[in-house]
């Protein structure tokens, strides 16, 4: 689903965007603006992961979630504003390509979900040291709904769906980082078994160049991986229980907010490939 599929009447306007100020100034400096975009993503990545890992209950645990947020919020704003401003500018200079890109649709949806989850849910929960009020719950559900649409477009888009690897792998690693003790080992054994099973199915049972048969098998494995990772994350979240610094919903907000930025960033990279 590309922007052109959703807004087909906009093509003349999109085609003319490159001639509009400031796009014609940005175009010759495209690489430099891309650098600003990546630096903004780096700042957003560092701040977001530390704030949200703290909500989950790991990371900078010697400080309260509100203290971690207070220390990083200015840089979080720099990252978000930076990606939006630099993104709009390089987007205007490259509008025609983005208009026909399903990965761009994913990126925009994930960006919207990221802003909703970051400012509507994660920031509120962090400021309240993990207590999730009514407004944060509403924004969490809204952000999750938009995020779900982004994931649906990502996983069903031709040529871009391999990019779901990033979302699944990031989720797997976050859960590995968060879990402790026997749960971590059980989780790791399950992941390893799934990896071995996928290798056997896609390299021995089915030949590696038999794409017609491989596609459904790989999709099935993606679902199984996602179910295993989400299942362990949910178990960890519930088992951890309600503590002084937030319960399962705060932790779920932390997981979702990390992953939504992973998907937005990964989709941005996949614009170049499909």
């Amino acid at each position, binding site marked *: 689903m590309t922007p052109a599929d959703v807004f087909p009447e906009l093509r003349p306007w999109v085609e003319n965007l490159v001639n509009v100020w400031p796009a014609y100034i940005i175009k010759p400096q495209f690489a430099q603006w891309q650098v600003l975009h990546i630096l903004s993503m780096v700042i957003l*990545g560092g*701040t977001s992961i530390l704030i949200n890992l703290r909500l989950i209950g790991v*990371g900078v645990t010697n400080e309260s979630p509100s203290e971690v947020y207070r220390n990083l919020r200015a840089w979080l704003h720099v990252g978000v504003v930076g990606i939006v401003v630099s993104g709009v500018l390089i987007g205007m200079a490259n509008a025609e390509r983005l208009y026909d890109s399903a990965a761009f649709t994913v990126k925009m949806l994930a960006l919207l979900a990221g802003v909703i989850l970051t400012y509507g849910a994660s920031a509120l929960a962090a400021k309240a040291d993990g207590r999730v009020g009514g407004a944060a719950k509403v924004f969490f559900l809204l952000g999750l709904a938009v995020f779900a649409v982004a994931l649906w477009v990502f996983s069903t888009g031709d040529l871009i769906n391999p990019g779901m690897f990033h979302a699944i792998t990031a989720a797997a690693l976050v859960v590995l980082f968060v879990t402790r003790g026997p749960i971590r080992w059980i989780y790791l054994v399950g992941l390893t078994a799934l990896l071995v099973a996928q290798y056997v199915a896609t390299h021995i049972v089915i030949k590696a160049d038999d794409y017609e048969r491989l596609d459904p098998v790989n999709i099935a494995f993606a679902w199984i991986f996602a179910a295993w990772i989400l299942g362990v994350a949910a178990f960890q979240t519930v088992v951890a229980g309600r503590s002084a610094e937030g319960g399962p919903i705060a932790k779920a907000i932390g997981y979702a907010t990390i992953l939504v930025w992973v998907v937005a960033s990964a989709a941005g990279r996949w614009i170049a*490939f499909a």
Partner: protein
Amino acid sequence: MIRDFLVWLQTELGKGPGEYPMSWSEALLGSLNFWGLLEGTHLLALMLFAGTIFVVDLRLLGVTFKRTPVSVLSDKVLPLTVFGFVIVLLTGLALFYAKPLVYYHNIWFRAKLVFIVLALLNIVIFHRRVQRNISDWDGLAKPPGAARASAAISLAAWVIVIMLGRFIAYDWFECGKPLPDWANALQECAASEKGAQTLAELAQ
């Protein structure tokens, strides 16, 4: 000698006996999705690595987490940084392996390596010298000049590394194009498959 090794790496290593044999490097570059997955993972790992190292650098500069001891923040954040760096390194090596000769004759790539070495040297100096008396300034909101200088160098070096990494994709100084003598010399264009063309030759 380095170039000969890279030619072997790109064109010979893993070459099969089939009708259209490809080396592993060529197979990687021509793969349907693997290249994209590597690049995407490289970027995401960079966000983790550089994003978390920036937070530690900002603490050393006295900008953020002023009430948290430097050692405490480092202990909590640096495992994430190291993990991100390992993934950046592994995916970076794999990306290099897919087209080693292109990178070898790329001025931005060469400059990037120089700044990576500088950034790593800065880390070694920080851990060996600056951090030796950390107990004296661990809890200070504004660490001493040496620690702040180290953080500023780290920030600057990694920003430049990221910038140079992005510029690699652009062909402004590609060998074979008319280039200033210094650019041809710095990226050894004369030895490359596309050769060296100077601006003077173009003017004639």
